[in-house]
């Protein structure tokens, strides 16, 4: 396997990225979490309980589906879709939540806090807390609560308390800050169930590990199906957890081209997007050093994406490293491209994707016509039910059609 699979180093660094940039109060708790995670990882009882939950509660393995009509219509690459959208709760987030909730129980934590953007991680957190009878508090930006009303209600139905965050841009970044403030205050009793491959070490490593099942399965499935590895893999990148989950299994396969798709938003002008590699520069936010959208004074920029789950100013540190190494490439898809891709996928394959995942679909659709004979895997990280209101707002003509 390549060197990249041995990342991070003992301090949580992926090359220069990652690390632990947090107040001293959080340092010892992060060390304790790291130790607990290493111990759990080695413990067959932990692994077998997790495997059982992933199979029988979450619904793993997920299918690798060949999108034949989509491929035919585009007339180029053969496109396979990794159906993480079919997981319980509707997105890949449940993989990480099951892993972390077992870890939290091992550590004797009774109170779980989480941040959420689109609400998928919040729903998955609320779900695993319900499963184990633990208190769950989810921080969510007020703007995201407005955009994702359905998920807010789902969390509440599952027994979680959803706290509206009214600071800053009232989106994911501000929810993370508020969760960190809660954690630093209630550190004795509380586990912070961070939902993406972000934050201070060990989170980016741990979240990656809990999601690597996606890529491990996809690799076996594609080999069984077509007898060879894919040529390209596409995944959307907000913090980057679904992307690192599918990329990791293929890092050693040099001929597999890995593409992360960021949110191109309305345009690539400052404040209009969340394309960190195109508009950002390395910096520190919320515990990690990575590519960050920031202004000339080092203040964190406002971001925009039609998909709340990609609307975040920092990219996960391992992606920064893969970017600099040239092992993965990162592009962006605009709001409009993602919306159109979602409609195309719905109408050719009968699959309504989450808006986040639709960014990966959009890039695959853009590239496929020129790639005759190549094999693609698109990681469809979530399903689109939660985005129905946004789809309706953006496709008003569909409501009129049957009027």
């Amino acid at each position: 396997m390549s060197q990249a699979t041995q990342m991070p180093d003992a301090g949580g660094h992926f090359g220069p990225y990652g690390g632990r940039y947090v107040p001293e109060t959080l340092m010892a708790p992060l060390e304790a979490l790291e130790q607990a995670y290493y111990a759990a990882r080695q413990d067959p009882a932990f692994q077998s309980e997790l495997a059982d939950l992933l199979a029988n509660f979450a619904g793993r393995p997920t299918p690798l589906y060949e999108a034949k009509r989509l491929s035919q219509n585009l007339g180029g690459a053969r496109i396979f879709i990794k159906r993480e959208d079919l997981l319980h709760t509707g997105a890949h987030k449940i993989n990480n939540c099951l892993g972390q909730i077992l870890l939290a129980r091992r550590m004797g934590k009774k109170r779980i806090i989480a941040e959420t953007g689109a609400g998928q991680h919040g729903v998955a957190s609320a779900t695993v807390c319900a499963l184990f009878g633990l208190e769950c508090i989810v921080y969510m930006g007020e703007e995201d609560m407005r955009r994702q009303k359905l998920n807010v209600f789902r969390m509440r139905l599952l027994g979680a308390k959803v706290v509206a965050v009214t600071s800053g841009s009232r989106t994911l970044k501000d929810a993370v800050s508020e969760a960190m403030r809660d954690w630093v205050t209630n550190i004795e009793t509380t586990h912070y169930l961070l939902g993406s491959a972000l934050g201070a070490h060990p989170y980016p490593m741990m979240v990656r590990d809990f999601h690597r099942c996606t890529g491990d399965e996809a690799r076996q499935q594609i080999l069984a199906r077509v007898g060879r590895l894919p040529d390209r893999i596409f995944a959307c990148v907000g913090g980057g957890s679904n992307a690192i989950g599918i990329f990791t299994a293929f890092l050693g396969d040099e001929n597999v081209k890995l593409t992360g798709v960021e949110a191109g938003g309305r345009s690539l002008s400052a404040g209009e997007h969340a394309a960190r590699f195109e508009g950002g520069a390395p910096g520190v936010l919320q515990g990690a050093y990575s590519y960050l959208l920031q202004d000339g004074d080092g203040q964190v920029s406002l971001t925009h994406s039609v998909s709340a789950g990609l609307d975040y100013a920092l990219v996960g540190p391992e992606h920064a490293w893969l970017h600099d190494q040239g092992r993965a490439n990162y592009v962006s898809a605009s709001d409009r491209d993602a919306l159109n891709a979602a409609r195309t996928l719905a109408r050719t394959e009968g699959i309504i994707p989450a808006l986040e995942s639709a960014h990966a679909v959009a890039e695959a659709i853009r590239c496929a016509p020129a790639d005759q004979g190549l094999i693609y895997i698109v990681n469809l990280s979530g399903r689109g039910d939660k985005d129905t209101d946004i789809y309706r707002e953006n496709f008003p003509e569909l409501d009129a059609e049957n009027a």
Partner: protein
Amino acid sequence: MDSSQRIADRFAQARTAARPALIAYITAGDPTPERTVELALALERGGADILELGVPFSDPIADGPVIQRASDRALRAGTNVARVLDIAAQIRKQSDMPIILFSYLNPLLRYGFDKLCQDAREAGIDGCLFTDLSVEEAGDTVETMRKHGLDTVFLAAPTSTERRLKLVAEFSTGFVYVVSRTGVTGEQSTVAGGVDTLVTELRRLTQLPLAVGFGISKREHVEAVGSYADGVVVGSALMRVIEQYGAAPDLAAQLESFTRELTARP
């Protein structure tokens, strides 16, 4: 160049007077960059020994609502690192009070860390404390600060293990900032129990002065903590005064009088 003597001298003076040094935090640029200089001088007149000059940041994860709001106001007023350094230089022209630059890391990385240290020293800043810089990540930054003669103040926390306290003691110069409780910055009705034990533990590991902060907002807190620590840090309580009187012409006088209550100076 040696580390600043000014900080050590102030702690020595306070010790001679058998009182804790008062370290006053204010967010630079709140309500405006222009007014920060007069506010710093008001703090000194009220009896503050050392100034912690805060660089506002868009995402202050270690701060409670009072300092979050102060940062927002300062940023809206156009405060950036260059302005903060300019404010420090103006204070230095009128005062010998030691100045600690208190900041989240990112604005300083963006400014350029080596240039920051050089410009900070030229502005008369004596040391730096970075909220989100752990000792593990501090190797290069500490080296640069020392090269420019800046004191390197680190935080010790109630959660810090003995191994970590040793590292904090080893990396710190000037003084060690002892965080009184788990949590974010902000006022409390009482000072957290157990901080005296943490101070005692640190005494075994370092000769440096120990200053306790987080949740100190009243004279009785200053007296209680001053009985075992070399210094006390007050921040949110001062920022609340600035928030309350921000638009008032007598803001500086109000701040001075509040500081005087804390220090019980005549």
